[in-house]
């Protein structure tokens, strides 16, 4: 299945170091203590995408320069967040590429290209967001719904297991999450009438240890939230990487839309556990509790945004700026909602229930003739990562101000075929759409500052101890801003829209910031 190229035989000392410096579960738990590395998709188990590196700071960010670039030579969206371990960078590219690079120079060490079947069904691009690592193995989910382990030294395939039949519309696009000796993945395919799940595989053997179906079968708790047999094709994928609280041994995952995405007829009920936050026991996959953000969704408001862990005044929280336009603060010990405040234009919900949870408005559903609803189908944000900065105590998120006209029509289900039950069209009659990076105070849900983008963007956000936040835009700029004020400090034109979430690392004491745009992975540093 793999075509592999070994390059850079001249790499000696750094590679030798990487070969012996195995990534243990303990190192993953303490990822924040080795900020020179980036050991998992969001940087740490809390999902904060924050680094304590501070060589690059407000006072010198204007001096940032490109250091090196790596080209995948592949079209489509380049969504990876690479890992860095002891001077070696590991990333993924379009069409299930993977690569290892010298993180100081960008020189390739090996490259892997999966031979994909012709008839895969990725709904939204042939994308992959990254790898997980444990020991000397890298783990990757593939577009043909396999989970594979690669040797981090060579790119050789160690094991390769099929999770599910890809021809039914299943795929993997997320970066896996390693907890202890397990590799956790969530499936994509909410636009194909799949039945979503989260899996855990033994890192050593590839054996599947548990599966949690995100749509309960008859007789299971929550099954009464589905009409008739609609649960069988109920969607609810889990296509963004979760987080992990070691104190309570709980892993948090989020889920996407019920299927069909924009037609509620035929699936009456709340449609659990679509658009939800799930608290799972990582050892067994057992559900501890859930919180559903959008009930009986008809606007494709996937909750697949990284559930960020934060602690304030002794409270253990999950922070999430949801695609549905609300910023939620949730007690992560029990799933109770603390606060939900809109951070973008919202019309799908006009009131909250007795627990403070926004509920759908009666006039918000798609209609045969079209109904203008905010946010639009791409959401007030989407999969791109937010960041939480423990220094400013602000949550930074890419917001998208765009409404759509949602129409709906009956659509028979056909396995492996797109299953939307609708169409939607951009609508800017009232106001032109735009994007913004917004800094939200979790204590109040209020926006402290925003940096406006000319158009809605798909870039994630990184915060650093240097007081700098990094983000990108649809116009191709990679931008550094003052985390306290939103003042722009520096920008670089990448030549293509940024469809990724940036990260940072250090080699030999020098800090680098990396971001993917177009076909290229760029890194930046000080002179």
């Amino acid at each position, binding site marked *: 299945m793999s075509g592999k190229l070994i390059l850079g035989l001249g790499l000696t000392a750094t590679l030798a170091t990487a070969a012996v410096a195995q990534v243990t579960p303990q190192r993953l738990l303490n990822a924040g203590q080795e900020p020179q590395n980036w050991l998992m998709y969001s940087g740490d188990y809390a999902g904060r995408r924050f680094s304590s590196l501070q060589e690059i700071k407000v006072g010198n960010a204007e001096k940032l320069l490109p250091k090196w670039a790596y080209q995948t030579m592949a079209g489509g969206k380049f969504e990876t967040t690479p890992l860095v371990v002891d001077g070696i960078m590991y990333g993924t590219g379009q069409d299930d590429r993977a690569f290892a690079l010298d993180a100081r120079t960008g020189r390739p060490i090996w490259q892997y290209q999966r031979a994909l079947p012709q008839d895969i069904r990725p709904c939204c691009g042939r994308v992959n967001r990254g790898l997980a690592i444990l020991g000397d193995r890298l783990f990757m989910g593939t577009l043909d719904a396999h989970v594979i382990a690669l040797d981090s030294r060579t790119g050789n395939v160690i094991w390769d297991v099929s999770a599910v039949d890809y021809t039914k519309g299943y795929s993997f696009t997320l970066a896996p999450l390693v907890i202890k000796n397990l590799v956790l993945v969530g499936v994509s395919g909410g636009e194909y009438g799949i039945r979503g799940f989260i899996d855990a595989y033994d890192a050593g053997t590839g054996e599947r240890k548990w599966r949690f179906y995100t749509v309960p079968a008859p007789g299971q708790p929550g099954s009464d939230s589905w009409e008739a047999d609609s649960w069988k094709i109920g969607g609810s994928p889990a296509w963004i990487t979760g987080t992990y609280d070691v104190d309570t041994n709980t892993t948090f995952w989020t889920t996407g839309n019920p299927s069909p995405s924009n037609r509620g007829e035929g699936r009456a009920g709340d449609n659990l556990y679509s658009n939800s936050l799930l608290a799972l026991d990582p050892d067994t996959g057992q559900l501890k509790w859930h919180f559903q953000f959008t009930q009986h969704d008809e606007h494709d408001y996937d909750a697949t945004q990284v559930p960020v862990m934060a602690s304030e005044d002794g409270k253990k929280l999950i922070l999430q700026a949801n695609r549905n336009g609300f910023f939620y603060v949730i007690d992560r010990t029990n799933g109770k909602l603390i606060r939900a405040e809109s951070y973008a234009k919202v019309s799908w919900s006009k009131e909250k229930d007795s627990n403070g949870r926004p509920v759908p408005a009666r006039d918000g559903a798609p209609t045969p003739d079209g109904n203008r609803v905010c946010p639009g189908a791409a959401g007030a944000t989407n999969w791109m990562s937010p960041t939480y900065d423990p220094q400013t105590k602000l949550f930074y998120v890419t917001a998208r101000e765009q409404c759509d006209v949602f129409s709906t029509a009956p659509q028979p289900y056909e396995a492996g075929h797109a299953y939307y039950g609708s169409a939607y069209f951009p609508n*800017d009659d009232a106001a*032109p759409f735009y994007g913004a990076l917004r800094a939200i105070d979790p204590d109040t849900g209020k926006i402290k500052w925003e*940096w*406006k*983008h*000319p158009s809605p963007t798909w870039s994630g956000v990184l915060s650093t101890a240097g007081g700098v936040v990094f983000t990108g*835009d649809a*116009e*191709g*700029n990679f*931008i550094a801003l003052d985390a306290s004020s939103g003042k*722009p400090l520096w*920008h670089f*034109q990448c030549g293509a829209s940024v469809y990724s979430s940036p990260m940072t690392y250090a080699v030999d004491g020098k800090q680098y910031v990396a971001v993917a745009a177009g076909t290229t992975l760029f890194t930046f540093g000080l002179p």
Partner: protein
Amino acid sequence: MKEFSVEYETVDAVTKDGTNLRGTLLNEDSFTIQFMDTREKVHSLDKASLKSLRKSRESLMPAYDEKALPEQDLRDLLAFLVSGAAGGGK
């Protein structure tokens, strides 16, 4: 004032040396703006280098003036255009 779709926004820019520039927006991002002036010259400027920048949805097309083009001439022109004669009448 005639309003029209956003892709035809009008740009009014004043450079730091006081030069007034006016044209139709071609492109922009957070840091730069590109527009074509009424002499069809393309400008690409750093926003930070400008004294002022304003965008409006006011058309640069001259307002209709009956003295320049009497109503009957206007009707004849419209009839000519609608007939497709200018495109070969296919």
